[in-house]
């Protein structure tokens, strides 16, 4: 727990010290305006919840991918990784704490979207199923954090992580059904999307903002949690494997 709290506090301080890390919080309001403008201009006021939830998910994803994904690589390039591993506290718990802090900052996007919708278009977040909405958000952040741990572990293996992060966002937005529901995408994409937790999250988030009954809520929420748990398990295993391998090959440091 000490490692988790140390990581949480460290990342809070790092993010506060560097506004560039908060870039997605500047783009979230812009995406909100774009998406709301599109659906309203198309006369599809029923899709306003979709337009509100898309920037929320995109912001969380950005934080997970860019901030979370580069945690270990950043430590390695700064010459910190080796000495963090030589400390008594387990490194994985520190990373989890840092990812949790990142996700907490990412959640600020939810309130931004809400505020911008209200201010610019007079469209608030319709809390039709508040309990379901809260549970879905919590489960989504959990799964997002798990994904960030996987990215963090994998990105250490490559020198081109930034290339990947720069190009991977939009495919995941499509596959995750962030703005366009999976159901209206070509059929062959749908099996691929079903293993991406965001596709389940996005549907549930949209559903919880609409008055209709949410079909099979608990089952679908379970899928988000399950996929998140799998991500965590994979992330921890990959992290342990990568760090053990680097101790053997002597690649923990970059110089």
């Amino acid at each position, binding site marked *: 727990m000490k490692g988790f709290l140390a990581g949480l*506090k460290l990342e809070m301080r790092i993010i506060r010290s560097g506004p560039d890390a908060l870039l997605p919080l500047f783009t979230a309001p812009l995406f909100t305006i774009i998406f709301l403008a599109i659906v309203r201009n198309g006369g599809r006021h029923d899709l306003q919840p979709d337009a509100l939830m898309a920037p929320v998910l995109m912001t969380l994803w950005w934080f997970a991918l860019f901030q979370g994904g580069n945690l270990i690589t950043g430590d390695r390039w*700064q010459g*910190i990784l*080796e*000495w963090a591993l030589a*400390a*008594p506290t387990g490194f994985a718990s520190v990373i989890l704490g840092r990812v949790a802090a990142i996700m907490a900052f990412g959640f600020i996007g939810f309130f931004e979207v809400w505020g911008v919708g209200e201010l610019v278009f007079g469209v608030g977040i319709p809390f039709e199923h508040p309990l379901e909405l809260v549970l879905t958000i919590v489960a989504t952040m959990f799964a997002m954090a798990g994904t960030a741990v996987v990215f963090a572990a994998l990105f250490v293996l490559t020198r081109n992580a930034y290339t990947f992060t720069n190009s991977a966002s939009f495919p995941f937005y499509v596959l995750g059904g962030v703005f366009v529901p999976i159901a209206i995408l070509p059929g062959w994409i749908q099996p691929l999307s079903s293993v991406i937790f965001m596709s389940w999250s996005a549907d549930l988030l949209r559903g919880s903002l609409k008055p209709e009954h949410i079909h099979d809520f608990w089952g679908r929420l379970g899928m988000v949690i399950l996929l998140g748990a799998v991500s965590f398990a994979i992330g921890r295993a990959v992290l342990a494997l990568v760090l053990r391998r680097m101790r053997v090959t*002597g690649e923990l440091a970059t110089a």
Partner: protein
Amino acid sequence: MPGPAVAVEEVTRVFEPRRKRDARVVALDRVSLEIPQGEIHGLLGPNGAGKTTLVKILSTVLVPTSGRARVLGHDVVEEAREVRPIIGIVFGGERGLYWRLTGRQNLEYWGALYRLSGGETRRRAQQLLERVGLLDKADERVEQYSRGMKQRLHLARGLVGDAKVLFLDEPTTGMDPLAAREFRNLIGELKGEGRTILLATHDMVEAENVCNRVTLIDRGTILATESPRSLGRVISRFQRIDVEGADQELLTRLRTLPGVQAISETDGSARIEVAEEGATGAVLKLLVDAGVTSVKTSLPSLEEVYVHLIGDRGLEI
């Protein structure tokens, strides 16, 4: 009698090439070393000698290819969890810190990693910042620190866990002479607290001034382990005599004395090398009889031993 603080047995570390065309590097070749508790031990060698590799192995961040290393009886590979709380690591250079955070925040993070409570972390950070002379800069970002200040923060970081064994790898890199002298005083204080210190350096003065014993290492092999004073005997068992004011006739007579191996002259002074027991006395008698009183006898310095054993290879690694 307590066991050694550090015991290295036949440790070899080979770095395999990532590409076929690169050569494999033998960073350590069957290195054995024992450091008793409470000793300040210098690890001297040029760049690429294997000093940092040994420090990394002892710090549990690198696995040896073969051999065993133990810190206070704990194996660094099999019992890494037991080793980590009892060691502290300090290294040279500017990396290894979060530059956007303040010195205090950096120390608080490392204190938490060493499982100190929140209050203890803050107290310890305050003490250490004071000890390394950074208290008035404690709340400035590290990116605003000079190189020497970063180095002092590294030292504080290494001490945050109250380690029994400290590994210092080129710790005075970037420090000005005064700061380096303060640092050496601090090392003396740490020894007084009963800590064992392994100091990897290529600074002869540093090693000579603070170390109880030094190990000379080059190309992954240990060349000698001695106290800095007696290490001179590795290359010469006999003293040298430095004189001023000896004329050519006297130097010629000195050359004929039994046991005088060589005489070198520079700017009115001369160095007489002897290679036999008793030769020093005969040389001194002749000098005093000739009225030369500016005479100094000495053993080879650590720097001379270093150059002799490792070779003067310029910038070559």
